[in-house]
């Protein structure tokens, strides 16, 4: 392959381009991003520490999902001693009542679009 070198450089450039957000993020400490989020309607804290939630809520949701769907473990006692049902529509949205002004606002800002709502229902949207 006499043009192997060129191909290699091409691949390298592609990889760098693709992973650039990763480097970009690593280079910044994240302090520059501030968005107005609606406060939770109840609770002093989130189902886990809210700072932890900010970074890891998607992992928690995946964990809840697997526990409910695959292990039938639907309820838990949180670190705060409160009993929670592991439910996206009911638990998360019972405190963060306004999905538009909480989840969506942040996601829109970041350009994330969780596909969960294709199936999961926002209670407010179906109950007038």
């Amino acid at each position, binding site marked *: 392959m006499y043009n192997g070198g060129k191909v290699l450089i091409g691949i390298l450039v592609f990889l760098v381009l*693709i*992973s*650039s*957000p*990763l480097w*970009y*993020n*690593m280079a*910044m*400490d*994240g*302090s520059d*991003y501030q968005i107005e989020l609606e406060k939770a309607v109840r609770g002093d804290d989130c189902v*886990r*520490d809210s*700072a*932890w939630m*900010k*970074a*890891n809520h*998607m992992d928690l949701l995946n964990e809840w*999902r697997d*526990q409910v*769907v*695959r*292990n*039938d*473990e*639907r*309820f*838990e*006692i*949180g*670190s705060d001693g409160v*009993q929670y049902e592991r439910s996206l*529509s009911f638990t998360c949205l019972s405190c963060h009542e306004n999905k538009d002004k909480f989840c969506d606002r942040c996601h829109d*800002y*970041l*350009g*994330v679009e969780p*596909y969960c709502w*294709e*199936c*999961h*229902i*926002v*209670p407010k949207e*179906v*109950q007038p």
Partner: protein
Amino acid sequence: MSVERRKFLKMAGLTALGLAGGAPAKVLGQDNAFADTAAEAVVKPIERSGALTAKRWAMVIDVRKCQEAGECTKCFDACHLTHNVPDFDNPKDEVKWIWKESFEHALGDQDHEYLNDAVKHAHMPVLCNHCDDPACVKVCPTGATFKREEDGLVMIDWHRCIGCRYCMAACPYGSRSFNWRDPRPFIEDIQPDFPTRSRGVVEKCTFCDERLARGQLPACVEACEAGALVFGDLEDPESEVRKLLAERFSMRRKPGSGTQPEVYYLL
């Protein structure tokens, strides 16, 4: 990170998405150290008191009682309402969890010309049989459909299903439906308690595992006023299902397929 950059990422394909997955989390995890020490260990799952449990769930359908109820559709309606099953009103896109079949189609291999009228014209509900040795589970390439070992329910993980429909080819009972299109617009009365499905995944009856966990009987059983649907633990000799099976003649669908269905029909 700019929205444009994210969009670019999305288009750059799976690898790119994979790489990007971890990125913003890092931005947000201002206390990265915290992420590691999260109080995960303190959290423990609990079983809510009153959940219905069994070693082996099974259903017994009394065809005679069902017959006496005439043109009743209560169990179908209750199930389909509870689980947000869409009504497309055309057989091509149809999704159904429990529906009515005649003897010929439900228990077909025992059909013959001179069968007594009561049986010949009998109609009975059919649904997923929650087989002991389910063919659908064996063929699923991702483990999206699986058998719950503790109580024998055959479940679907809708988050993992890739929509290959191998399970539909493998099911000897035609119990599985595919979402050929987005079901939401075809659900008249959306119940918030249960997620709808999206296009491209397979679905079927779950014996209402979400209701059992809350101490409720399956929606169809609860809705049946004729008492034709009986639900219980097959491993408990005192259960009503066991008593009925001991007293009456019962049949299962397609015993020859070796799947050991757990829905029994009393004739």
